[in-house]
């Protein structure tokens, strides 16, 4: 059995001390180690990351990985999952990455309900490019590209994902690792498109720890029915990434639906397909 420690690599970690990314790294490693105990084959796990501070996670976890380019986390995930449906595919994207540069891919992943897990390291700032506003920065946010304040209102990705068709929609917080681990495990176990927006403070460019600590509360099964789409929207709107005094974290919505792979492939496994004989097809051209 692999321990979370053994899931590390020799790559030197270059995140700033205090960065929320450490919480996500520890949580995913713990989740993978736990899932291995439950029977998940770690050699059949592939993670895909974008470009940004978050994306370095591909170097830090000792499993198969595809360190992609900015904004393009879902398409390689989709390609991997379609080519070999036996693989467990997990994406790590930044908020700039997921909601800015490549938002169309995210929406389509949800629309298709492809069976994979998508984790957004949402620090509401461009970390690696040293502090510009992102699609989830609060309105009026003063970043390096918006010294007079952001002229845009933030996007609510939780609400967006529920509308787009994601069948598992959650929000985590890096300070609540216990919940985050269980959300990640549930997301991976969910058959369909699982989305977790993780509130991940950027210690250096947008320190939101106090803000979140004062406002987050856990959604529990007792007071939220995650199978109810309307209620999910209500909870999603409680905090719109700017306005709102209380921030729910936990599972907003979960439903079972046929997956893209099931519908598109109908049992076929492309990496094991043998090409057909072209001769009878050519005959039809005479």
């Amino acid at each position, binding site marked *: 059995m692999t321990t979370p420690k053994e899931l590390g*690599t*020799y*790559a030197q970690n270059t995140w700033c001390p205090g960065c929320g990314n450490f919480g996500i790294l520890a949580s995913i490693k713990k989740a993978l180690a736990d899932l291995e105990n439950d029977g998940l*084959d770690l*050699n*059949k*796990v*592939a993670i*895909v990351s974008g*470009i940004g501070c978050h994306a*370095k996670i*591909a*170097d830090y976890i*000792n*499993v*198969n*990985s*595809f*360190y*992609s*380019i900015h904004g*393009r986390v*879902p*398409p*390689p*995930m*989709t*390609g*991997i*999952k*379609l*080519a*070999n449906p*036996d*693989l467990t595919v997990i994406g790590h994207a930044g908020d700039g990455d997921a909601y800015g540069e*490549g938002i*169309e*891919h995210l929406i*389509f992943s949800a629309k298709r309900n492809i069976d994979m897990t998508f984790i957004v390291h949402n620090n509401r700032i461009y970390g690696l490019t040293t502090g510009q506003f992102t699609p989830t920065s609060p309105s009026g946010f003063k970043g390096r590209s918006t010294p007079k304040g952001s002229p845009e209102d933030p996007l609510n990705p939780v609400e967006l994902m529920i509308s787009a068709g994601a069948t598992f929609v959650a929000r985590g917080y890096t300070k609540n690792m216990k919940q985050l681990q269980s959300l990640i495990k549930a997301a991976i176990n969910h058959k369909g498109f699982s989305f977790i927006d993780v509130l991940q403070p950027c210690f250096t460019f947008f320190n939101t720890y106090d803000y979140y600590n004062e406002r987050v509360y856990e959604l529990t099964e007792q007071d939220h029915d995650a199978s109810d789409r309307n209620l999910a929207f209500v909870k999603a709107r409680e905090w719109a990434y700017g306005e709102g005094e209380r921030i729910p974290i936990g599972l907003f919505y979960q439903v079972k639906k046929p997956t893209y792979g099931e519908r*598109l*492939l109908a049992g*076929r496994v*492309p*990496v094991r*397909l*043998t*090409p*057909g004989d*072209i*001769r*009878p*097809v*050519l*005959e039809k*051209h*005479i």
Partner: protein
Amino acid sequence: MEEISILIGGKAGDGTRQAGHVIASLLNRIGYRIFFYDDYPSLIRGGHNFSIVRASEKRIGAHKNTVDIIIALDQNTVENHKNRLNADGIILYDSKKVEAQGLGIDFMDIVKEFGGKPIMRNTAAIGALAGILNLEWSVLERDIKGSIGKEVELNLQIARHAYDRIETPLKPLQKLDQKPLPLVTGNEAIALGAVKAGLNMYIAYPMTPASAILHYLAEHENELGVVTVHPESEIGVALMALGSAYAGARTMVGTSGGGFALMTEALSLAGQSEIPMVIAECQRAGPSTGVPTYTMQADLNFVINAGHGEFLRVVLAPGDAEEAFYTAGLALNLAWKYQIPTFVLSDKHVSESIFSFEFDLDRVKPENGLLWDGRGEYKRYLDTESGISPLAFPGNPDAIVKVTSYEHDENGITTEEPGQIARMQKKRLRKRKALADELNKYDTVNIYGNPESKTALLCWGSTKGACIEVAEMLDLKVVKPLMLEPLPVEPLKKALSGVEKIIDVEVNATGQLAKLVAGQGFCIDDMILRLDARPFTVDDLLGNVKEVLS
């Protein structure tokens, strides 16, 4: 030599293309070799569409301006094309709709008599044509049964009636003692060649003139054992393809210039991550949206140079269906053997024209890349002598496979260390040697016409057919590189040795091949360029070449 050209024209929606296909099939069945040109504007209803079926005793790869028979379903067909008619040619026209001199038949009247639909005017026209050509009824009967899915009996009645209306066969066509061949478009050949080389997945976003590859593979998915996917955009297409190839599926994407523009970030990623990538780029007239349904050879520079950073690629340019089949297979195999991006650079004129297809299919078969032997610790970017690192795929119980867009060490972990960077750049570029050694074994430059001639037509891709015919008429040589990147300099030198005059022929405004070749020290004496988005016909090119030679 027996040959005939037939033009059929009408409005979009009149079904002239399908009618053209039936005509091509009829002539194929009586032993003729076919070239089928389809000319249509980018619209769904109205406008003017026409197709030219040219049938000959010998292999042909181009059409002519002049035709022997015009079938006019609308007045525009007569107005636009009557000048093409040979001295003894005839116009067969729909007498209710069209005014012309020739043989007028009220096709609609026949259709109505049997209670058919307006689209069946085509069937009547084909019936009449078969009569004019003095074809046996049984040939036509078989073709209608084979090509028309619905209401076969009704179509047969209509065709028979029109066939019987022709009392004297005005243009009797001799039956030839040759076997019919499959009639295949360039796009279909690309699809089949890739499948023959072991294609598992085809991913594409629709764009003329590449869409038919997607349509064809989607239609034949089960027979061909291929999974087809139509994602959200070409950006999605290209990145998905890298994901599926990383997972071990032999994958191809297809698009035209505008879609390929969106794929260039993925192309560069393929260069850095060494993930095999196969791209069918079917050119149309640009820049930008340009002229969507017409042809141009203007993306050569773009395809050779696209993508930031420096990395290897192979660009192959087919000039007919056989070459499309062969290059698609070769592109797939080379991509996997060298873990590089490879291109089939086609254009509308190859992709959407129909050719009589005759090829030894077994020349194309799947060739694996270098696979990891399972010994020791797996390193995705192992620095080997050839530069080629053994492949393993996620799911392998003994390997962890890490690919990345960053510069990396042998394990695929990011590096910024100068020694490592230089080492990996060298490793990737070192593959050029093994690639060149393999490419030396293939005929990357083809010669046609009179090999002894002191004058050569230099061409690539879709101008092949017209160049060969013109060269044969004027006793010239044709030199056609099948591969454009890496440019096969030595084979070109050999092919052009003894040649005193090089005439470059291209369908673009600046002579992109000429510049490429001139960059290697060859002296191009003349250029014949066509920039109206139309392909060279044999007669056009003949005139152009004569002018240059005079």
